[in-house]
């Protein structure tokens, strides 16, 4: 009996000690983890926009996120866009459109743009702004980039099925909806095969593809032409292959209307990425058109 008591006592002490160590480590690292994740994301966004580091981006460059919500109310489903308020205002605006894109209403949301970055805070503020028993479900976010008050580009974080599991990517579009850049954030494709989607010679192929081209291009299994490959690898970094920036731009422009060259041994992965990017672009362009129209008709002031 005494034995059992000692065992229980010692185990409890051991568990408490272990818990204290882990809890301490959690408290110490969690802040850093969030900070680094945010920094990393910002770095990726800026490099997609064409700035090598956080410092080299001009101060006039502003990123405005738009959060999209699916709202289930009595009258059926609606789409809510949580937008930052006009410059100088602290709150945000929720613009509600119906499923066909017609303007339904607009609600002020008491939430600072900084606090809106956290999903839990948004999840608390939005139902309060909606009132009643309407439920809001977070769908996705897109980011409008402005420079000196002018729209410069759009950043779309997205997720689509790959060959094995989901691929998380970030897509940058120019103002005319041609692709500015693609970055693969997370993927679990096979290393050496589908894993090559993160390589420059694959992801840079999407660069400079126009909206029109993006609607209809496919994936071809012919080998990647050598000069195109060199241009893709030289793009946006220390130029290997001895190509100047102009030459790179020229070769890329030449291939901009052509299909995507599939990775060797990973046609399905290549096709998944192409389809995923296509769907992201098309959905975004459709939604942004409706939102812009509603903003214009209702004269809702937004900073972008």
């Amino acid at each position: 009996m005494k034995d059992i008591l000692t065992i229980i006592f010692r185990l409890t002490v051991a568990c408490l000690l272990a818990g204290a160590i882990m809890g301490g480590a959690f408290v110490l690292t969690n802040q850093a983890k969030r900070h680094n994740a945010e920094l990393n994301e910002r770095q990726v966004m800026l490099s997609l926009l064409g700035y090598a580091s956080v410092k080299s981006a001009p101060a006039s460059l502003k990123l405005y996120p738009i959060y999209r919500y699916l709202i289930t109310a009595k009258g059926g489903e609606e789409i809510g866009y949580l937008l930052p308020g006009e410059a100088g205002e602290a709150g945000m605006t929720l613009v509600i459109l119906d499923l066909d894109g017609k303007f339904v209403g607009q609600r002020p949301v008491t939430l600072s743009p900084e606090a809106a970055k956290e999903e839990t805070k948004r999840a608390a503020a939005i139902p309060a702004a909606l009132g009643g028993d309407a439920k809001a479900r977070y769908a996705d976010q897109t980011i409008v980039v402005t420079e000196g008050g002018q729209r410069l580009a759009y950043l779309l974080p997205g997720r689509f099925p790959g060959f094995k599991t989901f691929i998380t990517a970030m897509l940058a579009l120019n103002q005319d909806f041609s692709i500015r850049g693609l970055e693969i954030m997370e993927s679990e494709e096979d290393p050496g095969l589908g894993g090559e989607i993160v390589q420059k010679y694959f992801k840079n192929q999407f660069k400079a593809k126009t909206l029109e081209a993006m609607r209809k291009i496919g994936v071809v299994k012919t080998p990647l032409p050598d000069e195109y490959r060199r241009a893709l690898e030289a793009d946006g970094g220390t130029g290997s292959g001895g190509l100047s920036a102009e030459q790179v731009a020229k070769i890329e422009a030449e291939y901009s209307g052509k299909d995507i060259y599939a990775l060797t041994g990973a046609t399905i992965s290549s096709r998944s990425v192409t389809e995923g990017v296509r769907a992201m672009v098309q959905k975004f362009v459709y939604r942004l058109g409706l939102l812009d129209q509603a903003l214009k008709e209702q004269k809702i002031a937004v900073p972008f």
Partner: protein
Amino acid sequence: MMAPNYRRILLLLLCGLLLPVAARAAGLAAKASFKGTNEIVLSLANPADAKGLGDPANYRVSEEQNPDISLPVAQALVSADRSTVTLSFKGPLNTRLTHLVTLHQRATNKGQAPETFRVSKSYWGYLLSILVSALLINNFVFTKYLGLCVFFGTSKRKATAKGMGITFTIVMVVSAIMSWFFYQYILKPYQLGFLQVVIFIGLVSLTVQAVDTVLRKVNPTLFKAFGVYLVLVIANCVIIAVPLMLADNEYNFLESLMLALGAGGGFLLALYLMSSARERMELANIPPTFKGVPIAFIVAGQFALAFLGFSGLKLF
């Protein structure tokens, strides 16, 4: 002497799995399903006026996650007996997602509220695909490279392999279910996600201890056969990898059960295949440098190569 016992357990498990399938299938009256990649077939409970049904403008189809983007229906074909309508689309649909089909106005009575059908692949098919995926496509040993220590240690004899595989599957299923409950109802609500590793390994040890005690009392013969493998189960990383994956992927209860069954079954399959090969290999003339473990690795590599053939296999 052992065989009838296995069979009874397996049979019971199988019955338990199949029962709900029959019960569910009977309850549906009107349903919608995918056909190929660009068609949706609606089966109607009470056939209505063909005119209204045949007009593509009466339908609104969208993915459940994107209700604001409607997919244009190219053609709506009503079958001769008016019991089914086939909607075809220009582009391929993403059949992995649930789609919503809204029938705006049934031409017969205009005041009627729009009717909505949900179109998705059969949930049971999805569950089965998780099972088959864990069993073959993402076999834990040959494509995820987990549990190798125990795999090489216990695959010398077929009898050992079977014993280990079955013990492992049972412990796997029990501990995965417990881990799922712990994760969903304790760790997640209280934001204790960082305790995952400790809790899961604790639950595994607990399961092993419990199975050990129960088996010893209830069926000493069975214990004699399987008791030795119980200790080895803890040293197997698959047993801790499965709960971690369940937590990562936010699987629900049934999906978790399927993944655990698939993982255990996959391990059993891998052990059985390997032990069969290794028993034969004893008769072969192997160079002295390759004797023992090195040749086992090469053979495992060949199995892995073969299992690569399953990847990309799409069921349901």
